[in-house]
């Protein structure tokens, strides 16, 4: 008996439907598997099982801690927090029953009415209330200008940027202090006369009318003239009396001081830092020595001692009765300090450049300044954006140190607000520190994100 095998042959003419990927590869499950469970599901050997178990343990621990902290923070800031003090009872609004208030015992959360009451003090310090519009106007101008320069799709960015660096400081100074500085018309008009003649000499000597020696120095003479005349015009501008009430820097405080110190430091430190870095790598021995000494000196002293020197030592050397502004002293200290740090960051960028770039620039016949401006610096600065922004952020946070010389910066004003016994409660200090931390975080995080955006934009060619 033979069996007959019937063999059917199938030849597929239509392509089979693609099967959906396994459930654990897609969607929520897939994501969870890839990011969470893939590291803890391998039990094929003793070692791997051990590793998987350990991973599972760490993951659980991480989630537990993160979750409880986030829940605590949200509860502290939003859910349990006291938001209003409608009856004006101040500190009793944030008291528990045992303390004499209405909140349940064991309550522990933010006391926001305290912040609302102190908001003016923490933002503006003792600045006169009737004049706050001046600070606000300065802030709005600054914000609009800054956004205009930062957002790359807006027109006239270069012009706005130049205005922000030249016109804006003058406007800000006049608005914040009230302008109407004292000026001696006679001396300033004679200074203008001198500078005009300097410019004339410069022009004449450039054309060679005044002999070969002066021709060499024509540019310097002209530059001196222009510097002098712009200084005098600036002083004249600042002396215009717009009828604003003068507000001394002793009345500034809070976020205002923090921003004034940080922005001045940031704006001045970059150009000065670049010049110092170039000076340190210069072939001219004197320039190199001066820049190196400057950088090493300012890097070698802590900012806190610079500020102490500026506020405690300088007045002792000056004759009694002669005093210059405490804020200006602090600003100068911060500027010199941050410029030295910036110089080293920029030097890092300069040294990272390929030697070929320098040589190519020279081979094209560019002068030193042209090659720096057109070839070297654009590349070098792009290299070190993270370092530059790092210095900016560090500087922004270092401004809190000015509170030790008696300037009420954001943190100082917050600390001083804690001293108000009419708001004293166990959560008073925590609330104000939390608020200050949130403001600092907003600024620093903003700077950090913008730097990342710039990096991506500028270094597309080199991004990995």
């Amino acid at each position, binding site marked *: 008996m033979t069996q007959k095998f019937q063999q059917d042959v199938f030849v597929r003419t239509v392509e089979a439907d693609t099967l959906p990927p396994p459930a654990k590869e897609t969607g929520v499950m897939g994501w969870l598997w890839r990011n969470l469970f893939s590291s803890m599901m391998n039990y094929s050997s003793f070692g791997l099982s051990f590793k998987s178990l350990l991973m599972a343990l760490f993951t659980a621990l991480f989630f537990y801690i993160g979750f409880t902290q986030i829940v605590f923070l949200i509860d502290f800031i939003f859910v349990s927090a006291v938001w209003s003090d409608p009856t004006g009872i101040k*500190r009793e609004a944030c008291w*528990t029953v*045992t*303390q004499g208030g209405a909140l349940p015992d064991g309550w522990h959360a933010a006391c926001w009415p305290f912040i609302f*009451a*102190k908001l*003016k*003090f923490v933002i*503006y*310090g*003792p*600045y006169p*209330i009737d004049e706050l519009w001046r600070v606000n106007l300065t802030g709005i101008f600054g914000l609009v200008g800054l956004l205009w320069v930062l957002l790359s799709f807006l027109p006239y960015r270069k012009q706005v940027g130049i205005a922000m660096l030249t016109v804006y400081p003058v406007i800000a100074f006049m608005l914040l202090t009230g302008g109407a500085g004292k000026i*001696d018309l*006679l*001396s300033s008009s*004679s*200074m203008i*006369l*001198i500078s005009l*003649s*300097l410019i*004339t*000499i410069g022009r*004449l000597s450039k054309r060679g*009318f*005044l002999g070969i020696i002066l021709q060499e120095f024509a540019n310097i003479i002209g530059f001196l003239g222009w510097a002098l005349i712009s200084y005098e015009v600036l002083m004249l501008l600042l002396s215009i009396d717009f009828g604003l009430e003068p507000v*001394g820097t*002793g*009345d500034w*405080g809070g976020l205002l001081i923090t921003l004034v110190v940080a922005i001045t430091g940031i704006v001045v430190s970059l150009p000065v830092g670049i010049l110092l870095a170039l000076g340190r790598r210069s072939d001219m021995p004197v320039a190199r020595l001066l820049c190196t000494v400057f950088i090493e000196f300012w890097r070698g002293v802590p900012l806190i001692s610079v500020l102490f020197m500026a*506020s*405690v030592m300088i*007045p*002792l050397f*000056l*004759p*009694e*009765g*002669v*005093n210059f502004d*405490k804020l200006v002293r602090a600003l100068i200290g911060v500027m010199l300090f941050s410029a030295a740090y910036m110089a080293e960051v920029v030097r890092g960028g300069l040294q990272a450049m390929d030697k070929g770039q320098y040589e190519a620039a020279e081979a094209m016949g560019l002068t030193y300044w042209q090659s720096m401006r057109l070839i070297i610096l654009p590349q070098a600065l792009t290299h070190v954006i993270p370092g530059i922004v790092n210095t900016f952020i560090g500087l922004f946070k270092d401004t809190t140190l000015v*509170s*030790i*010389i*008696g300037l*009420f910066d954001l943190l*100082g004003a917050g*600390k*001083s*607000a*804690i*001293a*108000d*016994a*009419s708001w*004293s*409660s*166990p959560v008073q*200090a925590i609330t104000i520190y939390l608020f200050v931390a949130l403001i600092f975080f907003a600024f620093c995080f903003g700077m950090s994100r913008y730097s990342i955006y710039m990096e991506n934009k500028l270094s597309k060619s080199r991004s990995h």
Partner: protein
Amino acid sequence: MNKILMAAIALVVGAGAGFVVGKGEKEVVEVEKVAEKSASSTMDAVKAKGHVQCGVSQGLPGFSNADDAGNWTGIDVDVCRGIAAAVFGDSSKVKYTPLSSKQRFTALASGEIDVLSRNTTWTMTRDTQLGLNFAGVNYYDGQGFLVPKSLGVKSALEMDGANVCSQTGTTTELNVTDFFRENGMKFNLVAFEEADAVVAAYDAGRCDVYTTDRSGLAAQRTKLTNPDEHMVLPEIISKEPLGPVVRQGDDQWFNIVRWTLRAMINAEEMGITSGNAKSKANDNNPAIKRLLGTEGKFGEELGLSNDWAMNIISQVGNYGESYEAHVGPNTPLKLARGVNELWSKGGILYAAPIR
């Protein structure tokens, strides 16, 4: 031709430069004059400025702290306001310089401020070696101890082996060390930089006792989770007479500050308040008349107007009013008068008479 042009320009520049340099020299001389003046007379400098520059703390409840609107208040601030009222007849002509404890004497010595009214303890070193003069005492403080009631201690002498919380870098640290050594007790110092950290640590139970000036204890106690469970021990282990300070060598200004404070204390003794000062001016009591300037020329002898004390009292109030408004039992600090009561009521405030 070129040479002539150049010579002409050089002449103009030279003349201009000489002019400016001359100008500059003159300015320098003027600055020196001002400096000399201020060294000899703070009063003239203050009058020229139009305000009193007063050094205060960076925030100490009841003594000098900024209120919600950012205005300075407190008993130290009232001394500054009193001086302004005496000098200008307007207590609002004061500007405040908040100072840390490290900066305060430099600020005074350098002329940055005219008077330091910043809860400063009067000690011999400060009085003799720093070129400063203490113009009086506006608050007698002393270091004390705060303990939880649950600890069951009735006296500081029962605290052998205690963990003591205090702030670093102040005399409180030294005082407490002296006290424990003197009494042959062991202790463990837990020190923090910030007052808030000390309170938080004490509240969390990291130490058994919290020590600082008694006015400070009163202020910090309100920040505890359960203030009623804590008590201040009876011992006072140090003397801390706090008062306004001026530069040495300017007796007129020194007298103005000293008598401003005395006028406030005398006014309380005579029952003159900010409310009734105007009507008391023609009182029968000659002592009141002398104080309020309706009799005699006491203000002029200080270089002020004769209604100097009238201005202080009507605008700032007497010492008792200032005390009640800022540190007294009806304020968050709830400090009883204690030794800061008038001598006639059992305290030690005793102001020399005006006659």
